[in-house]
């Protein structure tokens, strides 16, 4: 989880500066991003480890993570998450999602 957060924040800093936000604004946004990413990834871990799988909960948490990653400039990763969200049989995709999000 830490790896993904660090990679995302590193990319986000340049992305948000390029976007036109000031250094101060970017610092604030990055703090908020770290907090939100941690919260959603923690929620994802719980949701993925719950049996039987609650598909609606999986869908909701992936939606939240996808939106965060997109807003922070990690567009490619956000698109991968969205593609997995679009798939059926979420249960077998959970492994792929875990690999993407938690490097497992």
């Amino acid at each position: 989880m830490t790896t993904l957060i660090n990679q995302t924040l590193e990319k986000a800093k340049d992305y948000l500066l390029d976007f036109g936000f000031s250094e101060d604004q970017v610092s604030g946004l990055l703090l908020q991003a770290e907090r939100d990413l941690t919260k959603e990834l923690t929620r994802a871990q719980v949701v993925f480890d719950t049996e039987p799988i609650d598909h609606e909960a999986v869908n909701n948490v992936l939606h939240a993570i996808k939106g965060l990653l997109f807003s922070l400039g990690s567009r490619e990763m956000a698109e991968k998450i969205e593609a997995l969200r679009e798939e059926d049989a979420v249960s077998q995709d959970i492994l792929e999602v875990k690999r993407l999000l938690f490097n497992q």
Partner: protein
Amino acid sequence: MEEKMLKIIVADDHGIVRSGLNFLIEQQKDMQVIAEADSFFSLTEVLKTEDCDLLILDLNLGDKNGFQSIKEVHKVYEGIPILVLSMYPEEMYALQSIKAGAVGYLNKKVITEELVMAIQTIAKGEIYLSKAVNDTLLYGEELQEERKNPSEILSKREFEVLIMIAKGMNYKEIAEKLMLSPKTVSTYRTRVLEKLSLENTNQLIHYALQNDIVV
């Protein structure tokens, strides 16, 4: 004479997007974010008490189908112009958003360049669409878009679920046939409704018949 301050409500389920929009808007001396909402439910609560000149609405708030949320706000608060924000390209959802009652559509990718322009255009009572969408309209391609085969809009699985619902199969039957849970089938149905701008199963069946998806 004192300049009129444009009062804006921002509805997006991602806090970071709301913060970013706040930063962008607060740089304008004639615009002000007066309230925020992180869900459709909280938006309806905010709208009950706050009087605004513009609503910036995320197309996918999470707790409500995007087009449905536009329609519902537009129906109750017809006078409030709605600028839709989305991570999806304009060509996918802009026209549907306008048809649902929005007056502008902005892709989040170009938000810094175009947000202020979009707000100013809408404040003048005009519709705001990016150049890409305007060009599409100019060449009449929106009509082709409307006629686009649903199999091009929907994923393979969504299309299968559409066909089965239109044939009168219930969630349990579809779930067994596709080896999914009924809940997953229900999620697919919601996505199909969203992508086709439909509100319920009756409309979905009607759509399938009209488009010769089932006979």
